[in-house]
């Protein structure tokens, strides 16, 4: 992939370039406290855009899969029904999306656009989306205690699925084009040729950054194998379930969770709209059927479900992408400390105690 070099001070000019091309540019900002968030760039807030900051909890997923989205409007008129689907096709760019979230969007692509049925609402949000990936290179600001992209193999520098990638090399930024659309930006004079020294600098920084992660779920792949083989004891799932407060937070902050529910709401005397909104497999009503029967009554059945869906080999193969990208948000928001890294840890500990894995006898 082609790399170019630009001055630190020119990084925000990429935002300007994209805005000139008609993109609504989304970028990360710092709130008044420790919070950070993605927001649309305007002439007023353009100078407040920051790249080195903790990755926002609320993932950029909502720009392709909105929290609440209208699917149809239905009008009734004298017994007649008219169904009008509503489509939004924004032209958006996300500037400063982290590598884990790039992998998250790729997972959503695989899920919503793959297999027999294609989700047109997702496609409409996705088709004009331009991703400017920012490599986490500053351990103090960019990498949270819970980040584990090094284990999920999605970061700190994404290898694909972005249009343009930016990396802080100290005095300068490196830009890497991932698509022809990204490469087209290199026509602007802010981009200069990169040298071997720049590439060597990139590698040296990444080597250092990889060592800066506090969370290393070193049993991630073993956990995938055990979950896929059904080797996790009920006791372990129960232990995990007992810690779940059923708030649904993990699914809401997850960049790779896809579930939604659909609801009709009255918007006028003879008009309703059908909307879909994020749903969570952690919530009690997720599988409850009309009449009250709930095949997943116990909390641990529901927790089990979330981790099974993310870790089972079958689903990884089905989407050719894993529904956990190592962003660490679930670990950061969970009050019961059963984010993905903790669950992997609990499975590791439980497995260490299991005699069935120990075949030695006398």
């Amino acid at each position: 992939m082609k790399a170019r070099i630009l001055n630190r001070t020119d990084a925000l000019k990429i935002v300007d370039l994209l805005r000139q091309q008609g993109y609504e540019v989304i970028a990360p900002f710092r709130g008044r406290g420790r919070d950070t968030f993605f927001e649309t760039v305007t002439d007023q807030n353009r100078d407040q855009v920051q790249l080195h900051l903790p990755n926002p909890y609320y993932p950029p997923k909502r720009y392709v899969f909105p929290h609440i989205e209208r699917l149809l409007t239905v009008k009734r008129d004298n017994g007649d029904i008219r169904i009008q689907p509503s489509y939004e096709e924004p032209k958006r760019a996300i500037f400063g999306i982290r590598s884990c979230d790039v992998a998250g969007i790729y997972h959503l692509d695989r899920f919503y656009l793959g297999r027999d049925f294609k989700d047109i609402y997702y496609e409409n949000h996705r088709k004009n989306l331009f991703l400017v990936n920012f490599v986490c290179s500053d351990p103090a600001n960019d990498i949270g205690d819970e980040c584990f992209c090094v284990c999920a193999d999605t970061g700190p520098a994404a290898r694909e699925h972005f249009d343009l990638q930016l990396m802080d090399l100290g005095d300068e930024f490196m830009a890497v084009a991932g698509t022809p659309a990204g490469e087209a930006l290199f026509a602007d004079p802010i981009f200069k040729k990169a040298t071997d020294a720049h590439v060597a600098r990139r590698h040296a920084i990444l080597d250092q950054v990889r060592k800066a992660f506090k969370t290393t779920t070193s049993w991630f792949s073993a956990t995938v194998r055990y979950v896929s083989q059904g080797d996790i004891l009920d006791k372990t799932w129960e232990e995990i379930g007992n810690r779940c407060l059923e708030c649904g937070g993990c699914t809401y902050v997850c960049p790779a969770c896809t579930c939604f529910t659909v609801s009709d709401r009255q918007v006028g005397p003879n008009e309703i709209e059908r909307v879909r909104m994020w749903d969570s497999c952690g919530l009690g009503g997720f599988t409850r059927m009309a009449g009250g029967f709930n095949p997943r009554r116990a909390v641990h059945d529901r927790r089990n479900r979330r981790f099974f869906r993310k870790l089972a080999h079958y689903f990884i193969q089905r989407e050719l992408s894993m529904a956990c990208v190592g962003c660490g948000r679930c670990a950061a928001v969970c009050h019961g400390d059963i984010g993905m890294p903790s669950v992997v840890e609990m499975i590791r500990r439980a497995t260490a105690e299991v005699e069935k894995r120990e075949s030695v006898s006398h």
Partner: protein
Amino acid sequence: MNPSATENVRPTVTARREQAENIYLPRIAVLDRVVQEIQDVKTFYWHFEDPVDQRAFRCFRPGQFAEVSLFGVGEFPTSLPPSPTEAETFFTVRHVGSCTSALHQLRPGDKFAVRGPYGNGFPMEDYYGKNLVFVAGGIGLIPLRSAIVYALQNRKQYQRIQIFHGAKTPKELMYVPNLGEWEHTPGVECHLTVDRSAEGWSGNVGVVGSLFKKPGVQVPVENTVAFVCGPPIMFRFVIKDLLGMGFQERNIVSTLERYMKCGVGKCGHCCIGVAYVCVDGPVFTYEQIKKLGEDI
């Protein structure tokens, strides 16, 4: 082609393309008539407003399902009890939640909307040359009706056909006119039972599994597919009986029921074990169901 004819055709063509592109877009249906089956259960005969939709929909397979929209209330999945060999399209639905309740309130001529057909359905062609044993408890006969009628329409393709249907009381037997017809169809063994007898009932009393041991009944085990549908408790006992008779787990099929919103493998509600019930099911063999690891 004259201009008016073009005008008539165009909306349909556009609409079809739109539906193919938008998996969540239902098409308008009109209710023709309603038949009360048993208490709380009615059969709704309907057709699509657009004949093109009707023709496209009628290519469904036994065991598939559809999503029914009652605008302002919601959408729900329901079995397709008709066989694709029959002329009419209909649903048989128990009044149990808000959507089904809204459907029960509709009058002939009222409009609602339907998407589908969805799901895998029974692989009826794979069963050519085999014996078919249908075991239905209560409204479990709804999803099996399609396969039964299909098998009878293609009678030569199958060996023996047995139907076992049980209900709580004689008043709760499903599709009574069909049962009467099947009981008198040559080459079909139709056995009925009720848990509690009532006046005028001269048939068997007992759970549906008790029919297997009745004198004169011989359930073929070799080269046989058993279709089992019914409430969870009935399902567990019938499975036990069938396995006891020597049935292989892979020769027992059923359809699973789950809460689902989309019907096309996206919303995630019906995902159990390694399967999305809506796209990988709803028809599964007992061998598969066991591996899915959830209550029926």
